[in-house]
């Protein structure tokens, strides 16, 4: 009985871990031009800064970040893993910053093919897709797998 209980407990703890680390739920931060990030992968904080509109002092080209809203689960994963905030808070912060300083408002794209096209036609764009979809869009370069 104790063994069965131990196995069940193990399954309970392992089940969500397996689900989270499964390939189907990995998010890939992508661009078509890695020179944007000096051919380096970016850490989560650097990606969050980009999505909050901050530039590094040495950044030569302006980076345009795009939010992929084609899949609600993907968007929520991005918010949890990168922004650490809810969709409403992210919207409030983005709009408040735009309202105060001007500049460019972050674009939302609700179609992955359209997003892939934008990424390939514009070398300054950064966005995110499911890691499993990387096989379909081979021209995209990975900045980070989350």
């Amino acid at each position, binding site marked *: 009985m104790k063994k069965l209980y131990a196995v069940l407990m193990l399954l309970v703890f392992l089940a969500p871990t397996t689900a989270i680390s499964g390939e189907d739920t990995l998010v890939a931060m992508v661009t078509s031009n890695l020179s944007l990030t000096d051919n380096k992968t970016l850490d989560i904080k650097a990606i969050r800064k980009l999505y909050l509109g901050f530039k590094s002092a040495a950044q030569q080209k302006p980076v345009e970040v795009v939010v992929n809203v084609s899949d609600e689960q993907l968007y929520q994963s991005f918010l949890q893993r990168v922004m650490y905030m809810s969709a409403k808070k992210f919207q409030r912060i983005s*709009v408040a910053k735009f309202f105060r*300083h001007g*500049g460019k408002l972050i674009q939302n794209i609700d179609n992955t093919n359209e997003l892939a096209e934008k990424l390939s036609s514009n070398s300054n764009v950064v966005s995110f897709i499911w890691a499993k979809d990387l096989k379909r869009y081979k021209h995209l370069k990975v900045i980070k797998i989350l």
Partner: protein
Amino acid sequence: MSKYFSMNLDTNFNLRMIYKPQFKIVFLTCLLLCGSVQAFAALPTGLLVFPGFSAEHIRDLPAEEDKVESTFSVDLFYAQKKGQFSFLGEYFKDKHKSELERYQLGWDIDNRNTVWLGRFHTPIGYWNTNFHHGKFLQTSISRPAISLILPRHTRGLLLEGAIHKQEGALNYNIAVGNSTRQNATVAMQLYWQEDITSESLIGVSLTYREMTSDVLSIDGIRQAHVSVFANEEFRNWRIIAAINWLHNEVQFKNNQNESSSFTNIYTQIEYGINDDLTVFGRVEDTFSEEDSAYLDLLPDFISARRAIGMRFDFANSQALTLEVSRDKTQSSTDNVMSLEWSMLIQ
């Protein structure tokens, strides 16, 4: 305050008569706008629209009079950026005013510093530059009264930038210019963010201005203003607080000058019960206002306020807010109940 209220109603019957059609209009408008969100979704990139409707019921305690005020408002904001150049414009309209609030042309000196030319929000305190007419962006309906009596716009030059240090940044705004009823304004705002990806900050603004007055016996007013402010956000809590010190020198035409100072403080505390529901409260107080010749020119200034309220976010970027407050001016104490619908269309 009296200029805001055009209707004087003596009986509850009249109040009901006024409320009924107004709320019908509100609900119809809300429904229309909700249904039209898809159409609005095709707005040009860079354009934000902040429509709003607010209704206020004021009970003047000494006079025991009820007053009702309601107004629709719309704020249009547009910004574009091409290379190193930026444009920003904002127009606001309600039944009291119609004004081109901001028009600014900006040039990026580098990635972190921009110089602006045009009409902009004077960088004073926290409220003026963060919310202003973007009603949907602020949690409460009312603004701290101190932010309403200070000249809020400047025409001239604005230098805006930040000095980054590790994860933090010292942000600065320096403005020089003039405006309607202001011959000269010099303002500087500095605020420190420990972590630039967080909204928490602490700052100070220093302003000197020379103003004119409509009062015939007054030649001009010189004003020095210091504001120390903070916005702290942790978990579901948010605290906005400011201490304002104003020194005014009112220059009369008979060559007599009257100098006086007063201090105003406010603290707003917000708690997010969940993603859609936020409760808030704000306390405002003014000290040494009795001796201020400057405040004598502003009899409607709310020197003390206790406000509580609740905001409910729903549908696609819409919010309903209820606020109840007790407001004290030089001549009266009012109980105010306000209801506001606000929305963001982008």
